[in-house]
């Protein structure tokens, strides 16, 4: 498990109060109970705090779009980190 994915898993476990939660790149919001739009905002805030990145409005709102999953989110973070 990459460090990024591991941290993501830790944050999601915290967020959804589930110490057993297993997160892969293929995990989508529908796979995790309680991952609604408000939980998603909390996730965004936690990721911004953790990695010191900033998500654009469109990036925050595109959660429910087709093809969105944890992998896509991680790639986005990686691209943001690479720019710094």
């Amino acid at each position, binding site marked *: 498990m990459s460090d990024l994915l*591991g941290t993501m898993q830790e944050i999601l476990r*915290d*967020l959804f*109060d589930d110490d057993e939660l297993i997160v892969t790149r293929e995990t989508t919001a529908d796979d995790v109970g309680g991952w609604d*739009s*408000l939980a998603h*905002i*909390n996730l965004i805030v936690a990721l911004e705090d953790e990695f010191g990145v900033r998500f654009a409005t469109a990036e925050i709102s595109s959660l429910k779009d087709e093809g969105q999953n944890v992998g896509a989110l991680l790639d986005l973070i990686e691209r943001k980190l690479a720019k710094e």
Partner: protein
Amino acid sequence: MGPSSRFESTERRMSRHKAAHIDLGEFFTGGLSTSSFRKLTKAIKEEIAEGRVESAARAIRTAVQPDLDLQSSLNLHRLIGRLGDAAPEPARRIRVAVVSSYTADPITQLIELNLFARDVRAEVYRADYGVLRQEILDPSSGLYSFKPDYLLLTPSWRDIVHLPKPGDGGERARELIRTEVADWLRLWEIAHERLGCEVIQDTFVQPAWRALGNRELQDPVSLGGTIRRLNIALADEAPSYVVLHDTEHLSASTGHWSWSDTRFFHVAKLPCAPASQVDYSHSIASLVTAKLGLSKKCLVLDLDNTLWGGVIGDDGLEGIRLGQGEAEGEAFVAFQEYVKRLKDRGVVLAVCSANDEKNAKEAFEKHPGMVLTLEDISCFVANWGSKADNIRTIAETLSLGLDSFVFFDDDAMQRSLVRRHVPEVEVPEVPSDPADYVRTLDKHRYFQVVSISAEDLVRTESYKANAKRIRLRESTETMDDFLASLEMRERTIPIGPMEVERSAQLINRSNQFNLTTRRRTLSELKAIIEDESWLTRCVFLTDRFGDNGLISVLLAHRDGAVLEIDTWVMSCRVLRRGVELHLWNCLVGEARRMGIERIVAEYLPTSKNGLVQDHYRKLGLDLVESDDTGRTKWECRVKDAPTPIASHHLQSVAS
């Protein structure tokens, strides 16, 4: 550090401490970091799993800090849910409705959490976002079936209907503001009339941007200027059942741009940046707490490295850092100035220091940099005993409950000891830099106020006098001599408009001498004093040490020839002075005049009013009913009502 190593170390640590209760001091040392917070969460879960809900609830309450991040706050909120029905009975239960132009789900949860931290359980109703006016105007809305005690209105500036346009002159702009204020007054009035609830209204927050640049403040039609003027007009016009919650100030003190991260408004209609919601909810909860009479009353201060830099016993008068001309010395002066302002508006100050009393007092008497004087301190304790014991002594001397105390000490060990041995006392973490002291204390909003009465302004004198009275009692031979030496004068009158605010305060703040612990909002009490079926009395007391102000309230309800004592409260400062006997005699006299045949009364036990469980027995009433919760009912016939001898040292003065 990878997540797995963090996880393991937590495991190891927890298994070592498995048997121990949560030591909160350990978690707070050096501030709450993400990892220490995770440990705390885990420990709390364990406490709950093992059935130690009291300890778990206390840990949750203590962990709620004004600067806590959003995620930790939401996690704590979830832990409250885990307590379930096993949660300890709170001091108060209330119903709060949040009616907002925004998505209010997170603030709803955060307000619940922050109230829980102050021992208040709130059931919160949240209206759908964006239907603020409809919710109030439509009598069939969810708001009216919910019937809140408190209604929180959180509009945005986009809800302002009467905004001036460019080209409108100053007169037109003022007229629009008047019309807008009238609209809000009507909404408040409708809600209050239909629900009898108190209203908390957010002030409007200015956007961070300024289309008119620096001209915004002076220009009659600018958005920023209009919002400022509207806020002031709302504050000026608000009736007594409305409190303006100054969200505009919260935003300004955070910084308008950081406060309003507009991405989250566009994505989810959040009122402010997600992180700002924590501070907002803390502030709202502190206001509700103040309305309930549960704000803290007394600030207990350490001296060395708290009020000045260095140790007076070691460094001497010349050696301590305090006063102008030196950076750190100035920071201590600034803290003292802040504390003095608290005292000036009614917060009682006490000193609790590990020092020789002579050394400690010398700084107050002789150091030119001192802002606080010995006169400002209602109770001064400097010795080498345990601070926990000393704080108990201070509470007894001042006749104040420990749960109204805040203890401020730079020494982490003292804080930890006080947390452990006097858990009722609030103990904030104190930063290492004295320049941060003011911010730390202020951010906790311990001493939140909704109104300031004449009594608040002279409180220090009153408590100082009380401390002197207690010292006198210790030195006086007999109780009778003591009472005689007090030269007491009392005045007992029906509660009128002049007395209603202080009477409501007393009803809501008294815990010990309180027979039924029925709380009443200001508006409820106003309705009672207007209602002819109610008999109300309040008692003022002065003595040679000063004016005690309004110290007792009695509310009785008449039903035909029966008079039922609904509420009887008295300030514990004036216990054992014969005041309650006197008030009973007044009541019996009045009952005779009214042609009442029977007086009935009850005692409802709480964890705090054991003091008065035999009150009616002592007055000579007959016990007619009791149950296994400790609740008792009493009565007597007026024609043979006992009239105990009130203290002959209590001299009545004409009202």
